[in-house]
């Protein structure tokens, strides 16, 4: 008991300075190189849903990019758990002995509790939040090409629990979660014109938040959830605006003769990155949420769209159309760019919590892309034409 309490106090400090860990503790490898994987084993989870949840956990760990699931003899850490009426009791023990890395109860249904166990473990192992408990919202098209409908869906980040949220019978676009994950903003031409709606996932109610003349698209919640940035054309031209997330009158930020769209906030709320073609082909620009002169980012590609700011604030991921559909990452400190995907047909990046993995679509399929290795893993579902995924933070 005493040990457990002291461990809880010490662990966060150790995670802040992971290099100290080896010198102060006899625990096995806790510090990992960015792409080096820690070998872990999973003891079969106990309980009726145990076998299924063991697989869920293994999948979570492999997708985390931080560890490799191996036979117990080869593992430096072993995860074990028991499904309980309240959720799951999980524990991670170092092979070398000593205090558990994780020893906690996780509430919710078995699947949710298992994802939370995985996230707690990844947080303890890497010092960075895990994303196994995240969700994805996306649009999926059906019908003929010339008269397709796009509805909004939600699923777990591993593809499970896929649900259709809208039955608009219209073209729905760009679903984006609120920071707390409880709301989704999207646009639809359900009324005939393209309006912005907000779905409240807890009350299951939908409200209309922007229905100005012209287009009302690409709404993104500010980090505190109070404000939306979106593209409005009521002035006669698509411009970036802000608007209270409960509606009201917008504030115009840009004033160009070009096409301004796809705003995304920096995590500290001090800047907005968006797309404009005011200087020819579409590129990325930064502007203050109170307006002012935009600053162009040099992404070294001629056709870049769909910027998404990483949760750690350091990077912006975007789509490169000129390369046949690749994902690029702009480093705000070094001002350098990197193409982080392989193959083609990738678009619509959305960072996961760890600022390393990116959910995007590839030729109509959702994928989890590791921006360090370029590896893309499918997020399976039974739908086709999946576009514009967005993941919870």
């Amino acid at each position, binding site marked *: 008991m005493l040990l457990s309490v002291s461990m809880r106090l010490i662990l966060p400090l150790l995670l802040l300075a992971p290099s100290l860990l080896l010198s102060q503790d006899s625990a096995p490898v806790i510090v990992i190189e960015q792409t080096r994987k820690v070998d872990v084993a999973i003891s079969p989870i106990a309980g009726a849903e145990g076998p299924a949840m063991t697989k869920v956990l293994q999948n979570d760990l492999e997708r985390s990019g931080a560890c490799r699931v191996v036979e117990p003899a080869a593992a430096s850490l072993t995860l074990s758990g028991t499904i309980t009426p309240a959720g799951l009791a999980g524990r991670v023990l170092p092979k070398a002995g000593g205090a558990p890395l994780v020893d906690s109860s996780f509430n919710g249904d078995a699947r949710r509790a298992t994802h939370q166990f995985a996230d707690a473990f990844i947080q303890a192992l890497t010092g960075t939040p895990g994303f196994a408990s995240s969700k994805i919202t996306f*649009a999926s*098209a059906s019908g003929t*090409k*010339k*008269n*397709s409908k*796009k509805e909004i869906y939600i699923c777990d980040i591993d593809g499970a629990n896929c649900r259709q949220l809208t039955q608009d019978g*219209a*073209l729905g*676009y*760009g679903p984006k979660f609120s920071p707390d994950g409880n709301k989704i903003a999207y646009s639809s*031409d359900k*009324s*005939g*014109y*393209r309006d912005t709606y907000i779905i409240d996932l807890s009350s299951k109610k939908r409200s209309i938040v922007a*229905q*100005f*003349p*012209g*287009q009302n*698209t*690409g709404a993104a919640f500010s980090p505190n959830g109070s404000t939306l940035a979106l*593209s409005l*054309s*009521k*002035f*006669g*031209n*698509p411009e970036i605006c802000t608007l209270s997330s409960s509606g009201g009158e917008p*504030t*115009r930020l840009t*004033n160009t*003769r*070009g*096409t*301004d*769209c*796809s705003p995304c906030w920096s995590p500290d709320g001090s800047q907005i990155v968006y*797309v404009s*073609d005011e200087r020819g*082909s*579409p590129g990325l620009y930064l502007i203050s949420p109170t307006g002012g002169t935009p600053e162009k980012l040099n992404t070294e590609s001629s*056709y870049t*769209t*769909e910027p998404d700011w990483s949760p750690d604030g350091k990077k912006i991921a975007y*789509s490169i*159309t000129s390369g046949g559909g690749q994902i690029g990452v702009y480093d705000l400190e070094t001002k350098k760019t990197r193409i982080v995907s392989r193959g083609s047909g990738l*678009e*619509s990046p959305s960072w996961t919590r760890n600022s390393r993995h990116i959910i995007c679509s590839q030729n109509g399929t959702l994928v989890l892309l590791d921006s360090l290795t370029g590896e893309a893993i499918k997020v399976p579902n039974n739908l086709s034409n999946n*576009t*514009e995924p967005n993941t919870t933070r």
Partner: protein
Amino acid sequence: MKYTYLSLLALLAILSGCADKDKKGDGAAFGDSTDNIYDQALPERSGNPDTADYDTLKSETVFFSYDSFTIEAKERPKLDKLANYLSNNSKTKIVIAGHTDARGTPQYNLALSEKRANAVRQYLIGLGASGSNISTIGYGEDRPSSEGESDSANNANRRAAPGILR
């Protein structure tokens, strides 16, 4: 050459004149940016673009180059005809539905198609049409007139089509 330059000046004069008119007509001047001649504030909504009649004025569909919202010289006679139609039918409300080809990403294609529709609307206003009778919508790449990504399909799909609202 000189003639073209003068026409351009005349068009700019018409555009800025209309911007002022629209600003008053709209009643809700917005921010401090209303002197932008590219601003032709959109009218309150009417009708439903989804069920508009896109057949009657089909031959006045304007086509665009890749990633462009510029109205090319060869397309302008169609807009002369359309402006003429509007002046003869001053009660008719139309929507300009913009479209892109299948290349590019969804949000930018939505905005680019809206921008194409806006550009056609502004051009019509420049020719004397009433902006309050012209709404716009952008369908991005999702209402192609021709399937696939061949050059001919792409050329056919990059368009702004006038529809009569009913």
